[in-house]
């Protein structure tokens, strides 16, 4: 217990002292998390809408693929991406391997199916009469989608929160394509893994606490946004 208590005391001290390394890692994680979430949700939510509302050939198969991709191991995504971005790979020319951009790409690949599958479920959960009402009153495709989205706003906010949570919490892909380089690609999860293996439990715990705090802040922010709306 002393061991845990000591670790916690060290963590609080590091957070209160404004440790440059700790906050640098946190800021990089936040940057990567936000960018990846924007891309994953920006692509995934519209795809979810289409999967939920538009009948097309292969729709069922597409839903199965998206749902299967939810359980894609993060380290396997990292491995595939490593193959693509390495010098000998087809995308080696962009020289993104061991950069924060590579981590973003990996996170987008991982969070996209989450956004698509959960958005499809959220839209399917909206009373079908809402869509029919918007359409019969003359709304076009975009206005109808917006009307349905307004009804599903709580579920769609949960999609964004889940995607962000997944992105900041994943380690497999970030470690493989980012390389855990100090000051460049070291994120909260890769740093926690590193410092724990090095026996620096206090630092690892401090970073873990920040990770929890980030997830909490995003949730609170989204709930505050939802709270502004009325029925």
């Amino acid at each position, binding site marked *: 217990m002393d061991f845990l208590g000591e670790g916690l005391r060290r963590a609080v001290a590091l957070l209160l002292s404004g440790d440059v390394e700790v906050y640098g890692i946190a800021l990089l994680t936040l940057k990567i998390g936000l960018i990846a979430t924007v891309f994953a949700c920006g692509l995934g939510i519209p795809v979810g809408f289409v999967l939920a509302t538009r009948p097309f050939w292969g729709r069922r198969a597409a839903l199965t693929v998206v749902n299967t991709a939810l359980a894609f191991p993060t380290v396997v995504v990292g491995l595939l991406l490593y193959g693509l971005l390495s010098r000998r790979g087809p995308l080696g020319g962009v020289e993104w391997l061991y950069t924060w951009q590579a981590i973003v790409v990996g996170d987008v690949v991982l969070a996209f199916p989450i956004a698509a599958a959960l958005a499809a479920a959220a839209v399917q959960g909206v*009373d079908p*009469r*809402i869509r*029919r*009402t*918007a*359409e*019969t*009153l*003359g*709304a*076009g*495709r975009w*206005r109808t989608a917006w*009307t349905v989205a*307004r*009804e599903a706003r709580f579920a769609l906010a949960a999609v964004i929160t889940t995607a962000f949570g997944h992105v900041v919490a994943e380690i497999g892909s970030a470690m493989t394509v980012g390389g855990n380089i100090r000051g460049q690609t070291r994120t909260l999860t890769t740093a926690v893994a590193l410092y724990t293996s090095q026996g620096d439990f206090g630092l690892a715990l401090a970073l873990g606490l920040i990770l929890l705090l980030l997830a909490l802040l995003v949730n609170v922010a989204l709930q505050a946004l939802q709270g502004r*709306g*009325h*029925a």
Partner: protein
Amino acid sequence: MLELVGVRHRYDGRVVLDIERFAVPPGAGVAIVGPNGSGKSTLLRLLALLERPTEGEVRLEGVAVAGAAARRRITLVEQRPVLLRGTVRENLEFGLQVRGLRRTEVNRRVENVAARLGITPLLRRRRHELSDGEVQRVAVARALAVEPDVLLLDEPASSADRAAAQTLYRALAEERARRPLAVCLASHQLEDAYRWADDVRALAEGRLSPVTPENLFRVELPATGSGGDLKHVCVGTIEIAATTDKTGPAILAVPPTDIFVSREPLASSARNVFTGRVTRLTHQRPGTVQVTADVGVELVAVVTEEAARDLGLTPGGPVVFSFKASAVRVF
């Protein structure tokens, strides 16, 4: 003219609608009557271009149509309508805003239609603050606000009380008097259907019936009755007694289940007793028989299979139909 042509519509491989041709002419009032599950709502959704028929097409002015542009000329009010997120006013504005109308025109139309439907006091309320009947009136107002060429109504008075239903029908009549508006109404109640009785069609198991609903007669009601509201009205070669304070042109309806069937006239309080011959016995649903008889006019009654057997009813055999004057419904 809005038409369904050669439509066979399926859900999971099962044919739910099979209609060679169904038309709603410009400015017409068409009513579709049929029991729940007969396909009325599906038919209206196809007409509203909210679903594409599995086979066949929807035509507007003779041209096959689909999509948002054509949909703007047709508006459907569903049986249990929902309001969109926001206030009643925002709901009324929705269809006008998507048409890009100017703010002053939007306000004018919203206030006008709200006054006609008696929902002005509700304009600032949200959907969870309204009763089912109020939601239905708002939904009709929302549909009328966009001034469609064709208004489709699915059981429009199902959630409304009598007074609210009167307001709703009065507003629809005013709208039709004001401009050429075709109304197609689906209902399981004949009373609803005959308010718009330019043309009444029966729908059963997805097919439009070639016959009109049973025991309906267009009559001219006399100004005075023989006693109180009891009036005797000539229908073909017989006289039907009905209790009503109405006068002039009307529709008489005798519900088949309200007709008492016997082999010989019985002493009873029924003011209508007609002797005739059975023309047809039809097994309608398990356990029931539809008895069609010529008693001067053709009347249809429904009895149980057991009663038909006990009475020994056979085509061509004698039969007596009796019903009370109060059983006759007048529209």
